[in-house]
């Protein structure tokens, strides 16, 4: 499948490498040239300098034929808007936005957007891990 990753931070770069290693066609959109160096040296996919809410940038990344779009910049609002553009305007079926703010994630979840909230996930993992150990010790 053709996957577009918006935002080349640690998560974006790793996702891009992972999807490519599985034989997918990957395009990465990132506004900071330096951030693109996070990609593996042998990354073969397209890299597009620009913002993921810009139509021209999205088209250069091949949004019209994309099977999936993942918005993982470090800015919630950019992710929310980019994901909505992919979903509403370009009718991409498989779209996901990362939203750090749990409140915001709730709202956009209600609006029908597929989201992941790292804050909630991390809190749950840490809480469960600490609780499990405490229970093990019989505390």
């Amino acid at each position, binding site marked *: 499948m053709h996957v577009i990753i918006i935002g080349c931070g640690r998560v974006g770069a790793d996702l891009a490498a992972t999807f490519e290693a599985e034989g997918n066609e990957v395009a990465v959109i990132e506004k900071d040239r330096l951030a693109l160096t996070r990609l593996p040296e042998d990354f073969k996919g397209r890299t597009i300098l620009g913002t993921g*809410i810009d139509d021209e940038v999205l088209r250069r990344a091949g949004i019209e034929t994309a099977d999936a779009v993942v918005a993982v910049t470090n800015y*919630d*609002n950019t992710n*929310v*808007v*980019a994901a909505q553009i992919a979903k*509403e305007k370009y009718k991409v079926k498989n779209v996901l936005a990362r939203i750090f*703010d749990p*409140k915001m994630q709730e*709202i956009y979840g209600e609006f029908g957007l597929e989201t992941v909230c790292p804050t909630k996930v991390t809190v749950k993992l840490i809480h469960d891990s600490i609780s499990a150990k405490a229970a093990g010790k019989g505390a």
Partner: protein
Amino acid sequence: MYAIIVGGGKIGYYLTRTLLDNGHEVLLIEKNEDRAHRLDEALGDVVVHGNGTDIRVLERSGITRADVMVAVTGFDEDNLVVCQVAKRKFGTRRVIARVNNPLNEDTFRMLGIDATVSSTRIIYNLLEEEVGSNTLVCLATLSRGRLEIIEVGLANDSPAAGKAVKELRLPIDCVLMSVLRGDEIIVPRGDTVLEGGDAIVALVRQGGQGALRAALGAS
């Protein structure tokens, strides 16, 4: 009317001020602490320091009773999110978003925000109008498009204003048919002097528009 404004740049500041002067209740939300502090001193107790795209900040600002939400930050994604949240989550009746990049207007509309203001677009439209008094309009095409009847509005500062027709460097395949000046219709001859505000109707062979444009100083 109670209006919440997000973004305390020049637009946010003057908008707040204007609304206050007209007796409205206003709250201005600004992200930068220094700036929020200075705005508060200048405007009196109507500024909140905080991120206007943060739900908690909006809730504390009394968004549920706001009549209008105006998002005028320098970031289109922020303005769009503020307006979407206000409209869809809190049911704010009227939301207005500033669009910094005019290419994003379409996106805003598509994502449910109809009332947008783009200063780039406004200034561009004004320029168009200004230029419009000096442009070239095709009235009719003849001989399957090989000939065109064209109307050119002459601006006051056009280099052709004040010149006699014979002084113009008209393209070869071009005839000036008439000059419309107010209610007057003039059939121009070589010694007819053109004036700013004249509308000139010309017959020109296809491909000669550029030269005619140049001769009349139209853009």
